[in-house]
C-alpha cells in the first residue's frame, strides 16, 4: 500500500492510503481518516476528510514535480508541503539529510528584477535571516535573506545585473 511522508512546516505526517470504489482510507500518524475525493478541474478537488469539506488546489508552482514540493491552497491559505515516498524519506533521513539541505543548494531569484547590491561573498558563512542580495522589482528594493545557515560557495551575479525568476543568485556549499 502506498505510504508517504509529508512535511508541513516542521511537522511530519506518515500517511498510508488504501483506496476503494467510493473513498480512500487514510491512516495518518496512526489515526484513521476517511477521505472522499471529487475531482473538480485540473489540480482542484473537493475533498471530504471525515466529512469535513475542503476545496483544495494542490499545485507545484513552477517547482519541478520530482522535488515533492507542493503548495496546497485551501481555506484562503497557501500551505507549502513536501510529499515523499515513505521509503525514500527514510533513506534521506538515514543519510542525515534534512529537507532543507536537499532543497536549498542555491538561492534563486523569486521574481525578475534588477540586482542592486550583493551583500555576501564566496567563503562567507551566513545565519538564517542574514541578507544575501538586494533586488529591485516593482520599484521596491527587496532584501533577500538566507532561509537557513549556509556557507557561500559562489555568487554568480553582480550589482546592476537584471535577473529572471529562477536565476541562481547565490550558491551554497
Amino acid at each position: 500500500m502506498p505510504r508517504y511522508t509529508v512535511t508541513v512546516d516542521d511537522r511530519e505526517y506518515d500517511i498510508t492510503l488504501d483506496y476503494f470504489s467510493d473513498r480512500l482510507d487514510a491512516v495518518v500518524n496512526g489515526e484513521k481518516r476517511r477521505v472522499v475525493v471529487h475531482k473538480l478541474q485540473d489540480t482542484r478537488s473537493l475533498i471530504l476528510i471525515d466529512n469535513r469539506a475542503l476545496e483544495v488546489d494542490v499545485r507545484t508552482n513552477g517547482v519541478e514535480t520530482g522535488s515533492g514540493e507542493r503548495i496546497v491552497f485551501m481555506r484562503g491559505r497557501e500551505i507549502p508541503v513536501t510529499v515523499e515516498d515513505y521509503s525514500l524519506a527514510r533513506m534521506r533521513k538515514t543519510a542525515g539529510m534534512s529537507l532543507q539541505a536537499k532543497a536549498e543548494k542555491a538561492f534563486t531569484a523569486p521574481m525578475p528584477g534588477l540586482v542592486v547590491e550583493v551583500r555576501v561573498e564566496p567563503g562567507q558563512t551566513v545565519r538564517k535571516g542574514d541578507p544575501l542580495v538586494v533586488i529591485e522589482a516593482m520599484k521596491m528594493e527587496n532584501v533577500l535573506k538566507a532561509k537557513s545557515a549556509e556557507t557561500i560557495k559562489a555568487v554568480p551575479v553582480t550589482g546592476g545585473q537584471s535577473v529572471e525568476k529562477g536565476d541562481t543568485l547565490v550558491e551554497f556549499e
Partner: protein
Amino acid sequence: MSKQIKKILIANRGEIAVRVIRACDDLGLTSVAVFSDCDRAAYHVRLAHEAVYVGPSPSSESYLVHDNIIKAAKETGADAVHPGYGFLAENAEFAQRCADEGIIFIGPRPKTIRALGDKLEAREMALKAGLPVVPGTDTPTDDVATAKKFASEIGYPVLVKAAAGGGGKGMRVVESEDAFEESLATASREAQSAFGDGRVFLEKYLVQPRHIEIQILCDEQGNCIYLGERECSIQRRHQKVIEESPSPVVTEALRRQMGEAAIGIARESGYVGAGTVEFLVDQDLSFYFLEVNTRLQVEHPVTEMVTGIDLVKEQIAVAEGRPLRLTQDDVHMNGHAIECRIYAEDPEAGFMPSTGQLKNYRIPAGPGVRVDSGVVIFSEVPIYYDPMIDKLIVWGQDRSEALARARRALEEYRLSGVKSTISFHRTVLQNERFIRGDISTRFLEEEYPDNNYGSYDDQLMESAAIAAAVEKLLTERKISLVNSGPSSSRSGWVGYYRGKGLRRFGGSR
C-alpha cells in the same frame, strides 16, 4: 462653467480602471480604456466600451506617457480623463496638459496638485490654515552632515522621506545614529530611481501613531464637505493593507475637529474634487497633518460603504462644474466597513511580489461583501505594475459584524497560482490587539517581527498533508476515483496489483 461629460478615458489599469468604468456605466457614460502590451486582454479592457493601445508594458512607456494618453483621448473623442490613483493621478503637468488640450481632468486644478504635491509647500499651507504638523526639516536635503545634525536635534527615531515620494517609496525609519548614513543613502537611491530626485526630508517619527485620514469633497463654487475618517494604521513598508471606517478611536468630537482641519487646508489650497487629508494621530489622540492626496484613494470604498456616497460619481459631477449635491448635514456614517487589500505577494518572505497566472480565482460574495477586482481567472499578474489583485470590502452594522464578515469572506476566496496576502489578512483579523482596535502604524512589525503569519492550526496542517498525499497518489498511479457505486470493503489495490501483474506478463492492458 459647466460642461456635460459624455465620454471618459480612464488613464489607468487594474481594479481602479474597473471601478471608474462601473461608475461610467451607472451614469450612462461611455468609457474608454487604455492598455499596454501585457494588458491587451486585461479585465478593464474587457469591460470598457472602447479601448486604445498606449504602448509597451513598462508604465514609463505606456500609462505614464502624456502624449499617448492625450492622443488616445483625442482619437476617441473623450471629454474627460479620469486618472485613477498612481500613474498620472497626481501629475500637475499632465493635468495642465489636459486643460490645454480642452479635456477635463477629473481631479483638482493643476496648481493645487503642484502645491500639495510639494511636501514643503503643503506643510506651509497646513500651518497657514492652522493645522498642527510634526516637527521636521523645512527644506529637502541630500547633504548627509546637515541631515545628521538635524536628526540628533529632533531626536531618534527619525523618518527619512523622499522629497518627491509617495506611497511608501523612498521612506526609511532610522532608529539610531549608527544606522543613519546607510538609511539615508538607501532612501535617496530609491527616490532617485523612482522619482528622479534624490533629495529627502527628515521628520520626527512618532513612536506608535495611528494613520487616520479624512475624505473631502469640494466643488468649483467653493463648497467643501468631509465624509468621515478612515483608519489606515495597518501598513507594511509604509503601505496600507487594511483600512476601516470609522476608526475605533475617533469620537464624534474628534471627527469634527479633524474634518474641519481637513476643510481648512482644502480651502487654503483652492481644492476641487475628491481628496484625502492624512493625519498621524498620537496615543493621546492629538493629530498632526501629514499630507494631502490629490486623488481618489485605493481605500475610498470603505467611505462609500459607510456613507452610501459614490465618490467616483461625485468626482464626475464636480468635474462637470456642478455644485455639490450634499451639504455637511447630509453626511451620515452608518455601520462599519473594512477593506483588505489582496496582493500577489508572499507575506512570509517580507511581502515579496509573486507574479504569474491566476490558476484559480473565485471571489467571495454574500451579505455586506464587495470585491473591487481588476482580474479574472487565468489573468496574469504582470511584473510591471503594483501587484494588487483586488480589494475585499465588507460592511457590517458594527465593527464586530464587519470583522466576522471579513473573516468569512476571506475563507471563501479560491485563489491559486500566485501567493497572496489572503492568509495574512486572516491572521491579522484574528489578532487580539487588532480585534480590540489597539493598533498603530507599527502594529505589524510589533506583532509579527519575523513576518510569521502562518500559524496554521493542527487540523489545517493535517488536512493539507492528506490532500498532498492524495494528489501524489492519484497522479502517479493514474487512479481515477469514480465516487459512485455501492460502498465496497474490498481494497482497490487488489485489482490494481492484479492488473499490473498481468501487464508484466504481457497480458491484456
